[in-house]
Structures are given as structure tokens and as C-alpha cells.
């Protein structure tokens, strides 16, 4: 620096040009230095984020101070005062401090800033990758959507053709295919036939043998397989030289069959039948099959298989249902026809019942009357023959009627207490005369433990025993018949001959076993089953002039079945005799009630059943004789009897005191039924009303039903015996209801 002088104007030394330039540069430097922070502030303010604010401040301070220094420098070119120098010094000192601080700071900051750059690069890469993945996912999702839509379309119909057509159409659409075809195996299984295509409406029956290598290749792989466009299955369009055919893919479609589904093992590879689906990309499109497209095709192929199997199952079940309906209708018709037939038969029988019995009775009655008159021996013989034949006919009629009732199931056993020993004795008594004529001996052997009294149907049991014994007598020309009766023990009950017979032991019942052995002509073992069939007379039986209707044993068998038993016949052959055995279930009689036992000692003259003493009874009957007999009966039993002979009198006399009313419902002109209704009206409450019993000449179902309908409590068949009346009254008073079996 020059020495200080007093001159105001600076003196320009020789190098004042340099000084000038220095001066200008300093000025511009200062300017720049001042403007940089401004610019910084401006741009940072504009940007949203800048993490190093305080660095900026620091830097800004540094710059500003540098700028200030340079600016102050401007004054130091000339002589300057001490203040300026001090300011200059301070500025420089500050600048130095700040710049050192900044320098130190930058060591920290610059690596950071650089790393920001790397992070940015990294993020960019990541973003690109995510974009790619997004693209993939989107494609997959779209594929999934297509599959769902396609599945929905396929599954929305159960019609086979629609399923296949829809599949092809939709696939063609989604994948923008040129052609799509389905080859189905023929019935023989040796060829594949072109069944459906996308663009050809009616594919010609174009077949291809199934054992081509390319086809085997596809069938053996689980997924879609790329095949050559030149393979026979892919050559669907007439080739013209211009086209470069697009890529072709084929996939197998398993055809599941109902029989493939076992419960325990699901079909793995048991399905041998496949169809072939061939898909062709458009030619000249330079498109390739992408993985996701192949996956789509595979999924669709599976879905189609399932849908087809559903359709097949549905078809079969529809067929089965139609068949069942047809069978149902046929069965219904058959049942109705059978019912009509049964009804017709029952009507016929009902008519026959009456029509045939009436003249029969006339014949029998009149013939027996004729027998009583004076007749010449020839006439007597004739009359006896007439009687015998008509008795036989009457028996036949009864048998037929019985049998049809048995078959209907409408026959019910009359269960009552019976004397077993006397039943057998009576059979013996009936059979002995005939047997002795043929010089046959009949022995009856009742076991010691055979109960005297039992509960069962006496009439039908006797009928059965009589029939069996009678047969034995009929078919034996000489020798003996033995009848053995005993209680069957459990071991002997179960018989190999009766596999359906399951006897149940109990305390209330026992099984009676009857064995009838004869030394007669025997039966051929082959004929034995026929013996119980009605009307089936074998040749050998017929020639023996049996005179039976063929119904006897069949009826017996039915009775025995009703009695929960079993019957069988054994024979060693023709001429070797025959043994008929049957087992029936009978009940033990109740020990308590002595009066229920039949054949109890006859009542003493004054014996009156204590239960009925003073019982007020009203009897209505227009027939004087009937009336007095009924009255006598009831009086004998100890009742207090009032009699009336007309319905007016009846309605006048009836009161709450009368406990039982017997009314004849056969009175012509007086409706017993209407009377019953009137009584119900008069005494609506049950305990006020007397028990109403109808006396009738017949107890068929119609009469019983009419009585039940008008509210009667019972029906009894006239004429009534003392015992019957007694038991009727007991039952009525106990249960207040009585409807007699026919």
C-alpha cells in the first residue's frame, strides 16, 4: 500500500489498470456472493423439503460474509479509516470462522448427499420391478376372472352340448384363438372323432386313430402340451401356403364315468377315456403361448371334465327317475286292478254266500224231512245220497268262503278257553267209526303234561286236527293211525324244516305239538310241497278217489299260520306211510276267573251271579216268545227286567235307572237304529246312558257297522244261551263295549 497522503482523489499508479480490474472483480464477486444465498433461499422456499436448513444458513452466512469481505475490500483500495479497517478485520475474522465451520460441515454432508443419489437409483429400480410384478398379477387376475366366468358359463348348464360349445366359444374369445376343437373318443374307443369346433358349424365325422404318438403324448401328460400344427389333430383348416400357422396346444379332458367313483378310493388314474381339446393361435400373429394362458387352458379342461360328468350323472338320474315313474304307474295300475279283482271277488262271494246257502239249506232241510217220511228202500237210498252230496256241497261252499276270508286276512280267530282233552276225544270219537269200517285202529296218546284247559280257537283247532286225522284215515287202507299230542319243548321247536318259524317262549303261551302217523300209501317226497297248495291234486292223490276238494290242507295251513304255528308232512315214499306234524301256539287259561271255564259244573237252580243282582234291564222285542225267553234268561241271572214291545212304549219307559237295554233290531217297521240315536240324544252323557245292545238274527259286518255307527255298544246273535248272556253282561259291565266276532 502507498503511504497515506492528504489527497482526496486516489492516485492511479502505473498498475492502476490492474487495480481497476480488481476493483470491478471484487464488486462482481460481492454481488454474486450476495445473490447466491438469495437464490438458495428462493429455490429452497419453493421446494417442499430440504433437510439441511441449518447448513443452508451456515452456507448462507459464509457466502454473505465472503461477499461482505469482498465488498469491504472495495474501500480498502484507497486510503481508508480505521473504522473500515476494523470492520474489514471483523468481517474477515467471521468469514474465516464460518468458512472453517462450513468446511468441517461439508465433510459430513457430502457423503450423505451422495447416498441420496444411490437411494434414488435403488428406488427407481424397485419401482420398475413392482411395475413388472403388477403387470403379472393383473394378467393372472384377468386369467382368473376368465376362468371363473368360463366355469360359470360351463356350469350354468347341464346340457352336454351347450357345455362343450360354450367352452370352445369362450376360450376362443378370451385367448383370441383362431380355432378351437374338441375330439371325442368313439364308442369303440379306437378312434377320436372331431365333435365340436369353434368355426365350423357342422364338423364332418372326421376321425383319427387314437394311438397316434402325438395323441399319446398329450394323454400321458397332465397339462397342456404344445404340438406341431402339422399333426393330424391340428389340421382342421385347409392349409394354404401363405399362412404360417400359429402355435397349437392340446390338452386332455378326462371323461369321468359314474362307475369310476368308488366310495373308498377316488379315481386317480382309473379313467382311461380322454377327449382331446386342440387350441390354435391365429396364424401370422407371431403370438406365443404364455404360461398363464396354458394354465388357463388346463383349468378349463378340468372344469369341463367335471361339468360333463355332472351332465352325465344328471342324464342317468333323469332316466332312472323316468323309469321309476313308469314302473310306479304300472304298479299302481296293477294294484288297482288287483283291488278291483278282490272287490269283485268279494262281491261275488257275498252274493254266493247268500244265494248258494239258501237253496243248499232248502235242499238239506227238505231232504232230511223227506228222510222222515215213508220211503221205499230205493227211495231212501236216493234221498240219502242226495243228503250226502248236498252236505258235501255245503262243506265245499263253506270251505271256499273260509279260504277266501283267510286269504283276505279278514278271518280272525275266536279266542276262548277250551278243553284240549275233550277236543282230542271228540276228534277221536268222530274218526273211530269210519276207521273201524276200514278196520283201522286209531290210537290217541295225550302227553301227561298236556294242559286240560287252554286258550285258543276251539272250532278251528278241531277243524285242523280233524282234517289232518281225516286225511290219514282216508289214505290208509290198512294198518293203524296214531295221534300223539304233547307240549313242545324249546329244542324240538326250532326245526330245520321251518326256517321261518321263530317260536318265542313265554309264560303265557305254550306250543302244542300234534303228530299223526299213518301206515297208509304215503306220499312221493316230490309231491309234499304241493300238498298244501289249494286245488293242486297230484295224480296219485286224485286216483285214490279222495273226494276232497283239495282245499282241506290249504285251509289247515292257513289256520295254523294264524295260530302262529307250522305244519309239515314227512313220508318215506309211496307205500311207506306218512307222518303229519303241526305245532300251534295256545295260551294258558287265566287261573283267576273260574266262571270263564266252560264245562264247569252246571249251575244250581238258585244260583244267581252276584254281579247282576238287581241290575235293571230293559228288553224291547215285538215277538212275544222271544221276549219272554230273553226275559227268562235275564231273570235267571238275577236281573230286574222290564219288557216293552214297541218303540213308543220303549221311549216312555226308558229312564236313567235302566243300566242295560236289549233291543231287537230285526223288527220290521221299527227302526232299532233310529231308536239308538234317539237314546243318545236323550242321554247325551255317557254315565247317564244305559248300555245299548242289539239282538239280531245275523251278526255280519254290515249289521255290526250299522250298530256301531248309531252308537250301540254291542251286538249279539239270537238265540242267546245262558252262558252267552252271562258273559255278555259281565263284559258289558266291565268294558261297556262288546262286539261279537262273527
Amino acid at each position, binding site marked *: 500500500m502507498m503511504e497515506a497522503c492528504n489527497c482526496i482523489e486516489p492516485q492511479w499508479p502505473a498498475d492502476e489498470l490492474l487495480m481497476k480490474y480488481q476493483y470491478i472483480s471484487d464488486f462482481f464477486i460481492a454481488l454474486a456472493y450476495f445473490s447466491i444465498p438469495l437464490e438458495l433461499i428462493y429455490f429452497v422456499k419453493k421446494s417442499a423439503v430440504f433437510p439441511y436448513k441449518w447448513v443452508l444458513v451456515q452456507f448462507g452466512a459464509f457466502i454473505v460474509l465472503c461477499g461482505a469481505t469482498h465488498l469491504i475490500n472495495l474501500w480498502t483500495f484507497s486510503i481508508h479509516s480505521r473504522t473500515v479497517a476494523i470492520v474489514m478485520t471483523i468481517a474477515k475474522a467471521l468469514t474465516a470462522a464460518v468458512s472453517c465451520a462450513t468446511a468441517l460441515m461439508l465433510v459430513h454432508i457430502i457423503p450423505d448427499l451422495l447416498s441420496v443419489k444411490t437411494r434414488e437409483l435403488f428406488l427407481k429400480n424397485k419401482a420398475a420391478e413392482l411395475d413388472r410384478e403388477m403387470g403379472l398379477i393383473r394378467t393372472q387376475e384377468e386369467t382368473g376372472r376368465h376362468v371363473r366366468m368360463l366355469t360359470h358359463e360351463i356350469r350354468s348348464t347341464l346340457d352336454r352340448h351347450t357345455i362343450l360349445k360354450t367352452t370352445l366359444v369362450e376360450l376362443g374369445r378370451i385367448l383370441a384363438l383362431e380355432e378351437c376343437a374338441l375330439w371325442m373318443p368313439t364308442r369303440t374307443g379306437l378312434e377320436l372323432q372331431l365333435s365340436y369346433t369353434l368355426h365350423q358349424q357342422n364338423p364332418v365325422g372326421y376321425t383319427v386313430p387314437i394311438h397316434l404318438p402325438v395323441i399319446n403324448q398329450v394323454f400321458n401328460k397332465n397339462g397342456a402340451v404344445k404340438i406341431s400344427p402339422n399333426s393330424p389333430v391340428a389340421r382342421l383348416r385347409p392349409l394354404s401356403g401363405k399362412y404360417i400357422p400359429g402355435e397349437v396346444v392340446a390338452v386332455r379332458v378326462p371323461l369321468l364315468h359314474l362307475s369310476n367313483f368308488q366310495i373308498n378310493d377316488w379315481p386317480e388314474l382309473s379313467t382311461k377315456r380322454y377327449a382331446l381339446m386342440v387350441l390354435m393361435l391365429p396364424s401370422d400373429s407371431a403370438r406365443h403361448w404364455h404360461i398363464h394362458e396354458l394354465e388357463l387352458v388346463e383349468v378349463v379342461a378340468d372344469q369341463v371334465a367335471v361339468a360333463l360328468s355332472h351332465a352325465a350323472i344328471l342324464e342317468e338320474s333323469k332316466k332312472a327317475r323316468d323309469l321309476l315313474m313308469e314302473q310306479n304307474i304300472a304298479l299302481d295300475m296293477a294294484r288297482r286292478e288287483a283291488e278291483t279283482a278282490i272287490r269283485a271277488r268279494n262281491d261275488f262271494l257275498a252274493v254266493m254266500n247268500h244265494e248258494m246257502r*239258501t237253496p243248499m239249506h232248502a235242499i238239506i232241510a227238505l231232504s232230511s224231512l223227506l228222510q222222515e217220511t215213508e220211503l221205499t228202500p230205493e227211495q231212501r237210498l236216493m234221498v240219502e245220497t242226495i243228503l250226502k252230496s248236498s252236505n258235501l256241497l255245503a262243506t265245499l261252499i263253506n270251505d271256499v268262503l273260509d279260504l277266501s276270508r283267510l286269504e283276505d286276512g279278514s278271518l280272525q280267530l275266536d279266542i276262548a278257553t277250551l278243553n284240549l282233552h275233550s277236543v282230542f276225544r271228540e276228534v277221536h270219537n268222530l274218526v273211530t267209526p269210519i276207521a273201524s269200517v276200514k278196520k283201522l285202529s286209531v290210537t290217541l296218546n295225550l302227553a301227561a303234561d298236556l294242559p286240560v284247559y287252554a286258550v285258543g280257537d276251539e272250532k278251528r283247532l278241531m277243524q285242523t286236527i280233524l282234517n289232518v286225522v281225516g286225511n290219514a284215515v282216508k289214505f290208509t287202507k290198512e294198518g293203524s293211525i296214531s295221534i300223539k299230542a304233547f307240549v313242545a319243548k324249546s329244542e324240538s321247536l326250532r326245526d330245520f324244516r321251518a326256517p321261518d318259524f321263530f317260536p318265542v317262549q313265554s309264560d303265557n303261551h305254550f306250543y302244542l305239538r300234534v303228530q299223526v302217523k299213518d301206515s297208509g300209501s304215503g306220499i312221493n317226497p316230490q309231491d309234499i310241497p304241493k300238498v298244501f297248495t289249494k286245488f293242486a291234486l297230484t295224480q296219485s292223490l286224485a286216483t285214490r278217489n279222495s273226494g276232497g276238494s283239495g282245499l282241506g290242507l290249504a285251509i289247515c295251513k292257513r289256520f295254523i299260520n294264524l295260530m302262529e304255528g307250522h305244519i309239515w308232512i314227512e313220508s318215506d315214499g309211496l307205500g311207506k306211510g306218512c307222518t303229519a306234524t303241526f305245532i300251534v301256539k295256545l295260551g294258558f287259561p287265566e287261573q283267576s276267573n273260574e266262571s270263564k271255564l266252560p264245562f264247569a259244573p252246571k249251575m244250581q237252580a238258585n244260583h244267581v251271579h252276584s254281579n247282576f243282582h238287581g241290575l235293571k234291564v230293559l228288553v224291547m222285542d215285538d*215277538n212275544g216268545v222271544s221276549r219272554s225267553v230273553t226275559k*227268562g234268561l235275564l*231273570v235267571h241271572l238275577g236281573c230286574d227286567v222290564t219288557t216293552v214291545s214297541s218303540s213308543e212304549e220303549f221311549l216312555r219307559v226308558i229312564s236313567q235307572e235302566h243300566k242295560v237295554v236289549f233291543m231287537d233290531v230285526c223288527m220290521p217297521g221299527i227302526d232299532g237304529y233310529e231308536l239308538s240315536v234317539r237314546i243318545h240324544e236323550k242321554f247325551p252323557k255317557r254315565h247317564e246312558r244305559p248300555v245299548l245292545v242289539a239282538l239280531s238274527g245275523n251278526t255280519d259286518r254290515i249289521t255290526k257297522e250299522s250298530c256301531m255307527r248309531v252308537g250301540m255298544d254291542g251286538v249279539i246273535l239270537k238265540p242267546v244261551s245262558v252262558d252267552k248272556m252271562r258273559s255278555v253282561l259281565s263284559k258289558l259291565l266291565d268294558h261297556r263295549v262288546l262286539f261279537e266276532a262273527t
Partner: protein
Amino acid sequence: MAGVPQLQKRLVDYTASLFHEGVLDEQFNQLQLLQDDSNPNFVVEVVSLFFEDSERLLNDLTKTLNQQDVDFNKVGANVHQLKGSSSSIGAQRVQRVCIAFRNYGEEQNIEGCLKSLQLVKHEYAIVKNKLETLFKLEQQILAAGGIIPRS
């Protein structure tokens, strides 16, 4: 006069024969059962009632059938009554003929009805005769101091 045992035997045999011939049936037994000390003449009473009733009915039937215009309803009603009475006392053969008679009546078969009427009258005569004989035998036994045997 025969002794009581012989009379009793005759009664028993006679009764048996009536049953055997079918003139009477089980119902008659029932009637006899009803006769006891409180009701000693029950059977006779009822049988007498039967005789009265039947004679009246038979007369009615004869009259009705001899008319020009036969009222078959009346015929049916009378025959029904007769059938009822005869079955109540056990006159089996009468009852049987009544059944046939009724059928002819329902068919409105005049010939049949007339024939049946004859038959009924015949049967009734038989049963009346036999019962009266029976009662006479019983009276004889009682008069001789015996008791009437009941089987």
C-alpha cells in the same frame, strides 16, 4: 203204571230222540236251564206262548196267501215273527222252513209260499205234538213223585 225210573228213562230217551231228529235244538236246553225253583213252569209257559203265537201267525198267513192280491210284506213280517219265535224255543225244523218261506216271500213266489206254508204247518204240528207228549211225560213223573231228570 210204570215206575218212576222207567218213566224217567222214557223221558230221557224221548227227549234224546227229539234232538236226534232235529225237531229241537240246543236252544231248548237253554230254556230248560232257565227253569228253576223261582220259575218252575218257565218252559211250559214259554212253549204255550209259542203255540198261541204260532197258531195266530199261521192263520194270518193262510188268510193273506189266499187273497187275490197277496201282500208279500205282510207275509214277510209274519214269517219273520214265526222264525223268531221258533228259534227262541229251539224248534229247529220249523225255523228252517221259515227261512225258506221268507226267501219265497221276498221273491214273491206264490207257489213257493204256499208250499212252504204247508211245510210249516206240518212241522209245527209235529213239534206241537212232540212237546205236548214231553210235557205229559213230565207231569206223569212229577205225579209219581219223581224229579225230572235234566241231562
